[in-house]
């Protein structure tokens, strides 16, 4: 009887404890002890740097008297085969080599890659914003700045704590982008060769092309249609172009369909890839072609209910002609492709093709002249802010960065005796296993690509390894071709606004969803119905908020609160 009573009590206690577990504020007690108030605007250099001596950077750093916790976001991409993003060998390595030295606890906060805004909003609502907030898209961080997520800071203070990081921003001419509404909100990571775009490559079935009489990748629209048709007729593939549903942001990039030189006001109104530009001439041409592809049967008729992973699987299984993605030394999907299709031959699609008859130019989207955009939580204390800057500076140091990017010698990489450069072990799976894309989601806070030697060396290091074919030279060729295109003005840098565009914040979500619906209707309608439907849906899109977005963008541009067309 007594045993029963004790068991009952234990059961009830555990039930109640479980219920209440989520109700507490999990703020680190060590931070409460420091008694620091949140940073509004840190003008006092000595307060933030903690030193009045001449020394700056790591030489001037001392361990904090009381432990400081910093929370760093890290993308949890849901990729299989990578260690847990917030608890692995490398997070412990950071703690041991940086945190413990300066009495800082480094906590990583997993953020989903596809729903960044919601993740941060929920963290903010529960007063759990990480010390550092980072994102690749300028409109998103502009929204954070506007909605009070971020604190402003004094760039001189930052330069004192993190001089290497600051000098890098200065050298790369990034400082003007750190300001929003006249206040300093951001620090910016480096993006080497930001306007080249060589890191994304499209692979096509060269063996199929040879079967239908081509010794090269189709260069024009006419050649493309011919090759696809012949593939269908030869029974090689039913719907060779495949296809997947679009995701909204970044979809249907229309740079290749634009008229050059671009009209600057039109360029300003189109903005960036955050909201697809339905109604622009370039978008019309792009969707007209998508409609043609669909009606010719090149596109998978079920593409709109096929996700990207399924489309990738179709390429791996040898059902479709092409697939593109970012390159890295270890590309699982290419490994799988060759396992499934041992006799297949792939080719990298060459860049710089002009197709006057097809109405396209070799233009492409240049990335921003910076990588990650880094802001700091409005609820961070002075010490947390300083510790965050120290983390960024430490990560920027050559030896730290090299270890984070390449791993442990003899395990994650080997040194090539002839070139003296590191070579990644593509299939490494031991205890030092790095996170997604060579730990990129940790070191992206300072730089966007792995560095080792010249650009050729970099491409050699990041080109896919361990495959029956070597694409390194093709990628190098594409790199130099892109360099020529940059000189010709075909690397298109989107406008960046130094004030938040309110209509973008208000309507972007709705317009992204609406675009998916409309572009699929336009892709799948009959060819003869396309023009009328395009006009009708464009009007609806404008009424749903796009007109207001374009208007506000143009106003900001005219006020000089934006970059100019280069």
């Amino acid at each position, binding site marked *: 009887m007594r045993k029963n009573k004790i068991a009952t009590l234990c059961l009830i206690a555990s039930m109640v404890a479980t219920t209440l577990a989520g109700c507490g504020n999990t703020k680190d007690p060590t931070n409460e002890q420091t008694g620091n108030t949140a940073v509004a605007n840190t003008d006092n250099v000595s307060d933030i740097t903690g030193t009045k001596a001449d020394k700056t950077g790591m030489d001037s750093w001392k361990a904090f008297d009381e432990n400081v916790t910093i929370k760093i976001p890290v993308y949890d991409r849901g990729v299989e085969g990578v260690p847990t993003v917030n608890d692995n060998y490398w997070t412990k390595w950071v703690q041991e080599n940086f945190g413990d030295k300066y009495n800082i606890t480094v906590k990583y906060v997993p953020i989903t890659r596809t729903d960044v805004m919601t993740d941060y909003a929920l963290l903010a609502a529960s007063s759990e914003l990480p010390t550092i907030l980072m994102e690749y898209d300028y409109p998103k961080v502009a929204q954070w700045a506007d909605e009070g997520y971020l604190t402003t800071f004094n760039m001189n203070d930052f330069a004192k704590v993190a001089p290497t990081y600051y000098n890098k921003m200065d050298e790369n001419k990034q400082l003007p982008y750190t300001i929003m509404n006249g206040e300093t909100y951001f620090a910016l990571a480096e993006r080497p060769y930001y306007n080249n775009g060589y890191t994304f490559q499209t692979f096509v079935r060269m063996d199929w092309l040879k079967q239908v009489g081509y010794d090269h990748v189709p260069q024009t629209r006419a050649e493309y249609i011919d090759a696809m048709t012949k593939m269908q007729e030869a029974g090689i593939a039913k719907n060779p172009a495949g296809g997947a549903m679009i995701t909204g942001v970044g979809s249907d990039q229309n740079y290749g369909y634009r008229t050059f030189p671009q009209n600057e006001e039109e360029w300003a109104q189109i903005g960036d890839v955050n909201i697809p530009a339905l109604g622009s001439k370039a978008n019309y041409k792009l969707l007209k072609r998508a409609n043609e592809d669909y009606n010719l049967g090149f596109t998978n008729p079920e593409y709109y209910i096929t996700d990207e992973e399924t489309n990738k699987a179709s390429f791996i299984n040898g059902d479709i002609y092409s697939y593109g993605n970012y390159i890295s030394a270890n590309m699982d999907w290419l490994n799988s492709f060759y396992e499934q299709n041992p006799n297949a031959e792939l080719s990298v699609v060459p860049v710089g093709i002009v197709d006057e008859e097809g109405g396209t130019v070799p233009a492409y989207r240049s990335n921003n002249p910076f990588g990650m955009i880094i802001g700091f939580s409005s609820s961070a204390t002075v010490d947390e802010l300083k510790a965050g800057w120290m983390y960024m500076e430490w990560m920027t140091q050559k030896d730290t960065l090299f270890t984070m990017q390449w791993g442990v010698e003899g395990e994650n990489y080997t040194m090539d005796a002839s070139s003296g450069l590191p070579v990644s072990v593509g299939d490494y799976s031991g205890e030092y296993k790095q996170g997604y894309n060579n730990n990129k989601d940790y070191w992206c806070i300072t730089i966007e690509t792995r560095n080792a030697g010249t650009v050729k060396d970099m491409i050699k290091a990041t080109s896919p390894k361990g495959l029956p074919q070597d694409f390194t030279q093709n990628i190098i060729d594409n790199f130099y071709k892109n360099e020529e295109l940059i000189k010709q003005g075909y690397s298109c840098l989107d406008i960046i606004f130094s004030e938040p565009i309110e209509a973008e914040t208000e309507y972007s979500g709705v317009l992204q969803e609406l675009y998916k619906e409309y572009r*699929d209707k336009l892709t799948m309608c009959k060819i003869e119905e396309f023009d009328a439907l395009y006009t009708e849906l464009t009007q609806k899109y404008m009424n749903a908020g796009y007109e207001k977005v374009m208007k506000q963008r143009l106003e900001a541009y005219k006020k000089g609160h934006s970059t100019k067309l280069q």
Partner: protein
Amino acid sequence: MGRNKVELKKRLKRDWQLYLMLLFPVLMVIIFNYAAYPGLKMVFMDYKPARGYEGSEWVGLKIFQKIFCDGDFLRALRNSLTFNILDLIVSFPVPILLALMLNELRFKRFKKVTQTILYLPHFLSWVIIGSVAYTMFRPSTGLVNMVMTNIGLVTQGIPFLTEKWHWAVTYLFIGVWAGMGWGTIIYLAAISSVSKDLYEASMIDGAGRWKRIWHITLPGIKGTVVTLLIMNLGRIMGSNFERLDVFGNTQVRDFQYQLAVYIYEKGLGGGKFSQSTAVGLFQALVGLGLVLAADRVAKKLGEEGLI
């Protein structure tokens, strides 16, 4: 009064474990259903998560004005009402019929196996159901369409989930399939409480199976039916985001765009917490109104009602 106190003390002493265990659900309800109520004030604010309640601006009824003038909200409201009423019409009677049928089965093992098979879909998440549904019903590569095409029943695949009218029917019937087994449990329990004497007496009087169902079983579970109907009416404004999301695609958005989708896309997706909370509050108030009205009607018709 004093006697009552003594009684209560006695009971507490005797059954303290039970009262202590009751503490858990009561705490759950207080914390998750009532403790969040002060947060409802965000419907009168332009709430920004980073600024909190103190830093966000009071805007009065502007959020409601904005919602009721929003074409997307009206579209979502129309779709939600239409589909929930259809869902009620299609889904509500099925568990009753199924319970009546199961009750008539005499081979116990067969009855139990059938019941178990019927319950199983309830335990599958909508993500799994959606994934299976797309595998089965894709227009050209779905199993059902492939079979029908191969045996010559159709020349072109039926767009079960990719054309809005077909989608509406498929969506509703998958809902029935997923929920009917679970719904029968309550009715079977109610049927089991109907006195066996009544059945025996009616059989002596020569009543057949249909007569027994009509005159004994159905009147016996009428109270349960009315209670569940009232509870279901309370959900007429609600919608299940998970279900809508897994069955959604761009071709059926005209019907799939219901309040749950509106709340997710405009609220959580767009960071407009005030707007989504206001819609949630609107749904809850209308639901409450419907429950109270239905309860009143039920009482007027001589039933016990819910409250």
